[in-house]
């Protein structure tokens, strides 16, 4: 890519970010996190963990819209590669996501809060998984804005994962559970796999197998 292009892209890409979805998810997440504090309740550790996991999911549901691009078809064959554009979008949002999650942790009940590092790892894994699923949707379909479908898929995954995950691969364990450390090894693995999948989905054009799902965009 020509020198200077990446820097010039920052301004326009900043404006194309899905601010409504991000703001809605961010606000809702903060409200849920602040719920126990606002009501003066003293939640049990498992309740605080449940709230934090729920807030992480809410944040991830906002992130699934990050790769939506209404001008996708018009900007498909341009020299600036899609992975660069996607990476820039993620880079622009990442600092805000970190600040937001820090605020969520500060709002949670300190006496019953699980280890911050471990629960932050879970939040990061869910966020990166959301982005990976979004990148996969962009890669495999012709949808310019697959965010709503990806959000539905992520919700489904969030509901089914605790129910269907094998006992030896439990992710949603409590902090006092002896499986807590092993569970977080698995969260770290999930984070790494999601990051790799997301990165692999960036390049275009599509390969042969993936094109079968892109049929909708080729009517004529």
């Amino acid at each position, binding site marked *: *890519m*020509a*020198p*200077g*292009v990446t820097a*010039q*892209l920052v301004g*326009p890409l900043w*404006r*194309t970010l899905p601010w409504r979805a991000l703001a809605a998810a961010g606000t809702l997440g903060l409200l849920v996190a602040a719920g126990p504090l606002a009501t003066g309740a003293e939640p049990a550790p498992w309740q605080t963990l449940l709230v934090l996991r729920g807030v992480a999911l809410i944040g991830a549901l906002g992130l699934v819209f990050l790769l939506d*691009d*209404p*001008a*996708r*078809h*018009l*900007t*498909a*064959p*341009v*020299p*600036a590669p899609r992975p660069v*554009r996607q990476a820039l979008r993620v880079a622009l949002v990442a600092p805000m996501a970190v600040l937001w999650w820090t605020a969520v942790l500060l709002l949670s009940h300190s006496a019953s809060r699980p280890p911050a590092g471990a629960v932050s790892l879970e939040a990061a894994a869910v966020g990166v998984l959301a982005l990976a699923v979004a990148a996969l949707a962009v890669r495999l379909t012709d949808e*310019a804005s697959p965010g709503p479908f990806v959000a539905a898929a992520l919700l489904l995954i969030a509901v089914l994962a605790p129910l269907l995950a094998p006992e030896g691969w439990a992710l949603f364990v409590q902090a006092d559970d002896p499986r807590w450390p092993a569970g977080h090894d698995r969260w770290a693995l999930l984070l790494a796999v999601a990051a790799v999948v997301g990165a692999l989905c960036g390049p*275009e*054009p*599509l*390969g*042969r197998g993936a*094109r*079968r799902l*892109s*049929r909708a*965009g*080729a*009517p*004529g």
Partner: protein
Amino acid sequence: MTSMTPTVSASGLSLHYGRTRALDDVSLRLSPGVTGLLGPNGAGKTTLLRVLATAVPADRGAFTVLGHDPASARGRQEVRRRLGYLPQTPGFHPDFTAFEFVDYVAILKELADRRERHREVRRVLEEVDLGDARGRRIKKLSGGMRQRVALAAALVGDPGFLVLDEPTVGLDPEQRMRFRELIAGAGEGRTVLLSTHQTEDVAMLCHRVIVMAAGAVRFDGTPAELTARAAGRVWSSTEKDPGAKAGWRTGTGSFRNVGDPPPGAEPAEPTLEDGYLLVLDGADTEVAA
């Protein structure tokens, strides 16, 4: 402007979506001027355009654009630097102004120098008659104006090869006429491939026409040659001729028939659309040029 070296040279392009054959051994050479691409829905027009625009790779076959082969990543970059593409459904960031949107596309096309880029953006917006509307948000523009923004985005950077996928669809007659002027202007000195359902667009704009059906090229020649396919095969009658491949009542009350005329039929002047209908009918499927 004409050139001996074709801008685009493609041979044996084939592409399948699952079991569906979208492109079937398509070969063509495009030179400067406007080439029309006609065909029914599902003929493979959009797929061919997307392949030539490097948005989708073909399963088989090869092509070059201005001497660059997009099979390699480097070649694809070079092709994209020389390409303007207006897809069927462009899509916009509605809060951008026309200027901001075309400027954004210009950055994506690697026009890094801000001052030169802004000059180029103003130039293309003037070219599509949006100079006065460049500060208006896209969500406030009419459909025809949005289509012109998309054309400006395709034209920015002065590409040598312009791919337009049904740019006049959904436009009213006045807007369509205006768009024809713009496409005719864009075709001066550069190669334009125009996919359309409008045979009038082809008749008025194109120096050459390609007809596709079922993913294959059925006709490749001049509009006059396509019209000539219907010479002696269009006739008028007072009743619809049951032997006609197509027939319809005209405004004068008589029937216009296309096909193999019966003895003594009253011949009518053929049009490009008649030739197109006959090519699609399968009576003439060989490539003419």
